[in-house]
């Protein structure tokens, strides 16, 4: 089996290469977060017929850098009544959860930091870290708004992990693999082979398209809820809970929450890309295919999904907490189960 990590190929397995493998996603996360923050500011501005940041560098492109410099200088407040250890630990737990998920994301056919066989399972497991962090932060802040935000967040994560998992499971049934690299490789050969369009196969896959499309939408909606983005941002709920679970955080600890939110956005976007949008494969068969172009396609597709998330955020109103439960349990879960059963049935037929 050929290597899926070009750093191992180049440097062999030693301490330095391990450091390189670890730090590459971190550098990527930091750069990506800056770009995403700018994108959020600019896209929201365009939607609202504004201009967004304009006075920090040309067209305001240095805005996120200024923000990081400022946040580094801010005073780090720990409230007197807060539970000190948990309060200080929470942002790092959340960021660790988001960052750990990057370990299995296949950026290109030559680069996945760790190519493990249960990649999807790993992402789901690590993704739940953020819920722990949110509860820790919300409870330790000793603030009523934070506590309510934390409680809402837990119920939200629990109700949305299941439809998301079922949606992913359907693809696992089709690919019979949980290795994200494998799933990406199976969709090679053009966009008609992506699992959002039923995956590779003969003309009979037409029957599967409605179901896989629905599952992709369901996973996308559930991922919005997992990352606390707007129609489901009730743990933060700016107009209700002031700033939700991070009301009491300031300075760099708040920046960690900020980074973790954007990193989480990328993780779910990467999962959508990998399992539904073909991962690093080129949408046009062998055109512009290859290791380097693979990274390009992967990041392009992921950024498109991130853009969708931003677009939705600036369009829709927010759900109420009970409606969120309703959607999770009574809408997304039954529909995803129906799709899952249908897809299992079809894959059985194909196999038989």
């Amino acid at each position, binding site marked *: 089996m050929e290597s899926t990590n070009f750093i191992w190929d180049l440097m062999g397995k030693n301490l330095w290469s391990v450091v390189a493998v670890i730090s590459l996603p971190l550098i990527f996360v930091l750069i990506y977060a800056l770009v995403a923050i700018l994108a959020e500011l600019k896209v929201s*501005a*365009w939607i609202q*017929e*504004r*201009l967004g940041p304009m006075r920090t560098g040309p067209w305001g492109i240095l805005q996120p850098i200024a923000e990081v410099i400022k946040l580094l200088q801010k005073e780090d407040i720990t409230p007197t009544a807060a539970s000190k250890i948990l309060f200080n630990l929470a942002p790092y737990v959340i960021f660790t959860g988001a960052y750990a998920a990057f370990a299995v994301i296949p950026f290109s056919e030559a680069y996945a930091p760790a190519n493990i066989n249960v990649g999807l399972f790993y992402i789901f497991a690590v993704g739940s870290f953020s819920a722990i962090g949110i509860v820790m932060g919300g409870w330790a802040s000793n603030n009523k708004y934070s506590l309510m935000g934390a409680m809402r967040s837990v119920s939200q994560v629990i109700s949305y992990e299941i439809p998301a998992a079922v949606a992913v499971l359907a693809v696992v049934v089709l690919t019979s693999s949980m290795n994200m690299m494998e799933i990406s490789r199976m969709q090679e050969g053009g966009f008609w082979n992506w699992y959002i369009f039923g995956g590779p196969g003969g003309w009979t896959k037409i029957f599967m398209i409605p179901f896989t499309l629905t599952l992709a939408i369901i996973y996308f909606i559930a991922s919005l809820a997992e990352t606390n983005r707007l129609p489901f941002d009730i743990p933060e709920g700016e107009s209700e809970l002031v700033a939700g679970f991070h009301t009491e955080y300031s300075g760099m600890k708040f920046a960690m929450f900020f980074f973790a939110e954007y990193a989480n956005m990328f993780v779910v976007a990467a999962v959508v890309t990998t399992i539904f949008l073909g991962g690093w494969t080129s949408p046009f068969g062998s055109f512009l295919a290859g290791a380097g172009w693979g990274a390009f396609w992967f990041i392009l597709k992921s950024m498109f999904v991130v853009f969708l998330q931003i*677009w*939705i955020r600036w*369009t*829709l109103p927010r759900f109420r907490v009970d409606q969120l439960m309703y959607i999770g349990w009574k809408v997304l879960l039954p*529909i995803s189960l129906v799709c899952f059963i249908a897809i299992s049935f079809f894959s059985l037929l194909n196999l038989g």
Partner: protein
Amino acid sequence: MSSYLKNVWAGFYTAVKGMMITSRHMFKKSVTIQYPDEKFDLPANARNKLVLDMSRCNACTACAIACPVNCITVEGVRVSPEDPHQEVHADGKPRKVWVTRYEMDLAKCCFCGLCQAACPSDAIKHTQDFEYSAYNKESLYFKYQILTPEQSAEKVRLLAEFKEKEAAAKAAAAEKAATEGKPVAPKKAAPKADEASEQ
């Protein structure tokens, strides 16, 4: 069941519809006026910074009386005819009153425009200038003066001297009249009492 499906569909459909609307706006030209570089052209009657034209002011205190906030303080002294420093007023006539003190506190002003309407000589005016924010409040306290404090004291002294002279002349005249046998009416008492009651 059908209402459930309809509901789900409506949720999805209206969300997509909303996104279509916002996507249309994404490619519209922005309406932003980039403030320090481009500026909104204000109407001529815009009520921003208050500015006094000292050459027009007659210290009539109409603005101070009209002001609901009492942020204007005006003091004036009548020009003594013997003053060597005579000036022509902006309306072409010789100046009758020296403005010894004109202060307005734009940190208190409510920009209602009543002083502007009350001013008989168009001296006080709201301008279009709004860019005068300050690091300390004192610089929002505007003091207008054409005379130095020494000069103002001089003017007050001159007027007092002139009044004294006038009074002396009047007294002399009255004395002269008295010696000639004409009765002198007590004029001064009544207006003074009026002044005191007003204050």
